[in-house]
């Protein structure tokens, strides 16, 4: 698309125009970059490190998609979004996909016209309190001051939970996780509530994580997953199967260590062969190269590796797999077959 210099100048400053008719996949390929919406900073899920490099679990999904589509895991533009801006950013086309621990709900899927392509983390809303309060159950929180991230489903869950249990509380709405931490630590709120994974990530960032406990109650289901716009199924398929490829790779034992060998030539396991493109034409069906899944997995390893590297038990965040284990291990991860 030729443009005048004037608009060219504006492009450098800002603009990324694409033909309206073209699908997101073509746009991304033409642009050579994937615009991926993430949080403004939640350690473990998506946060810039000291060098300004984005790191985290959601970031891993973005990189995998970029690797699958463009062959380069670093060809991602990370767009930080808040609870308020994330949906408009996606709806208006500013970002191609949103990987910002967003809960899959009916109204978001149907009313806001988004397509959730899968679940990359099964979560639930929990409560964190200082140990010194001596609280052991959420039912004892009558009259407590609760910090909540506004614009999230947690806000609504909280209202429902306290209303059904007939407990009074004082909500303190906070825009970002970063602002919630000091308020909670200084004692301006007794309780901090968000997704259990977010609580773990937040707690890990504290000076003395041991002084705080996460209460046993999980008051909601929070399936978190990447989402794309309604009405562009090709692009939705690309993101969905990139995520599925990561999960399937773990199930099939494909890791970043052995993928070079496995992907070099067809092996014994036909599903691995199809996944890695040494057999069949799955990549071409998606409109991608044959080694799309191989690239996606090589970007940061399979699902398990990304999990362990960013939020697993050996990281400061220390989440166990729990519901997010493979179905063979008693978890909920169960991807449709690559066939």
């Amino acid at each position, binding site marked *: 698309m030729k443009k005048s210099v004037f608009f060219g100048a504006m492009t450098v400053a800002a603009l990324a125009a694409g033909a*309206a008719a073209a699908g997101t996949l073509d746009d991304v390929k033409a642009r050579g970059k994937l615009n991926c919406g993430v949080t403004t900073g939640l350690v473990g899920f998506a946060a810039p490190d000291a060098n300004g490099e984005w790191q985290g679990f959601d970031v891993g999904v973005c990189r995998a998609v970029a690797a699958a589509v463009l062959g380069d895991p670093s060809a991602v533009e990370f767009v930080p979004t808040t*609870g*308020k801006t994330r*949906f*408009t950013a996606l*709806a*208006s086309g500013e970002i191609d996909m949103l990987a910002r621990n967003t809960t899959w709900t009916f109204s*978001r899927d149907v*009313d*806001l*016209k988004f397509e959730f392509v899968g679940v990359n983390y099964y979560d639930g809303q929990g409560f964190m309190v200082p140990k*010194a*309060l001596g609280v052991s159950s959420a039912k004892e*929180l*009558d*009259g*407590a*001051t609760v910090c909540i991230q*506004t*614009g*999230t489903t947690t*806000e*609504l869950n*909280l*209202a*429902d939970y*306290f*209303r059904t249990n007939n407990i009074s*509380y*004082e*909500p*303190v*709405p*906070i*825009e970002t996780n970063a*602002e919630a931490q*000091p*308020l909670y630590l*200084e*004692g*301006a*709120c*007794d309780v901090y509530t968000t997704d259990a994974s977010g609580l773990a990530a937040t707690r890990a960032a504290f000076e003395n994580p041991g002084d705080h406990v996460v209460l046993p109650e999980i008051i909601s289901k929070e399936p978190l997953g990447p989402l794309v*716009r*309604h*009405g562009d199924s090709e692009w939705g398929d690309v993101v969905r199967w990139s995520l599925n490829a990561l999960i399937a790779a773990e199930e099939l034992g494909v890791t970043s260590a052995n993928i070079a060998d496995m992907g070099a030539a067809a092996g014994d396991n036909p599903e691995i062969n199809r996944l890695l493109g040494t057999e069949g034409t799955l990549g071409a069906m998606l409109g991608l190269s044959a080694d799309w899944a191989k690239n996606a997995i090589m970007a940061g390893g399979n699902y398990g590796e990304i999990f362990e590297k960013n939020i697993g038990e050996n990281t400061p965040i220390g989440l166990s797999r729990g519901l997010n284990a493979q179905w063979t291990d008693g978890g909920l991860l169960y991807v449709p077959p690559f066939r």
Partner: protein
Amino acid sequence: MTTLSDPPKGGFRVSILINDTRYRSYTFQFIALIALIAAFAYLGSNLLANLRAAGLNISYKFLSEPAGYDINQRLIEYTSQSTHFRAAIVGILNTLLVAVVACFFATVIGIFVGVLRLSNNWLVNKLMGVYVEIFRNVPVLIWILIIMAVFVAVLPQPREFRGDDATASMFLDLFAFTGRGFYFPRPYFAAEWATGAIGWLTIIALLIASFFGARALAKSAAATQEATGDRPTTWYFTLAIWFVPLIAACVIMGLTWELPELKGFNFRGGIYARNSFIALTFALSIYTAAFIAENVRAGILAISTGQTEAAASLGLRPGRIMNLVILPQALRVIIPPLISQYLNITKNSSLAIAVGYMDVTGTLGGITLNQTGRAIETVLLLMAFYLIISLSISAVMNVYNNSVKLKER
């Protein structure tokens, strides 16, 4: 070369539309109108196309649906089952509350500082100058954030009031100053028939009656003075008119004070001013006070010393010079910028979102927008609200300006 007195040549040419001053303004206005309509049509068609592509529509139905979220500070009845519309009303009331309180404190501090800046005392003068410059030249958002952060970090939290080895205690057992806000004793009426609004309405009615009573008394005193030359001493009557019915009503209705008390996680009872409310009010007050101080100073300096001297030569006492000569003239200079500062406070109160105060930007433009995803509708409503407020304030200002305008003859 034609001369100016030549009549315009007859006949119509296209260039006449631009070159002839009789038609030129019509041409330009026509072009402007077309351009405006074209711009609106363009934006509107884009909007429609975008909405159609996204499968969305413009609808205000969400306003009558349950909001689903709780609001901590509500001046009217509100639960999470109330509608989004009601949530917006709660937010509007919170905005007005913070704006009115901040305007009051900003005026008080501003006048105080403005007068002190004119003081002969060098140290006070300079100190006030430093205050004004520091607060005027740093963004109000930073002040709001600093004050909130310091408020939360420095003041003791309720947990420090707890237990036998509490490190903090209530002031006089009446007030609790915590990092979560201030708790004050709350007056209420114990008598059964006077609980709720009725008691307060009675008090307000009494105060209005006392006001008219006191005025009547002053009038009759003035009439006596006109007639006899002596003004009867009435101040104890005035005091009685103001206070006797009030105290009597309070006793009859059983005025009692509800004291804040530490129960469970928080103080309960009493009036609770939230930390976000206090931080926002305080920051807006001291920031705007710096501007008001400058207005006050300019207003007083604008009155030439000749006025004071002329008044003094007429034999007026210093107090009366201030009241009758200087202030009426200075107010003419001070009030217009003062009102626009009030407008600024109202607009700046939208920064409440930075400290989580639930004003209309927090409810309608914040949580409702987030939960319903109705960005265009909510932002339009939000703008309409602020527009109504500021247009009313400017209307008030125009009325005032007309009433104090120098009557030129």
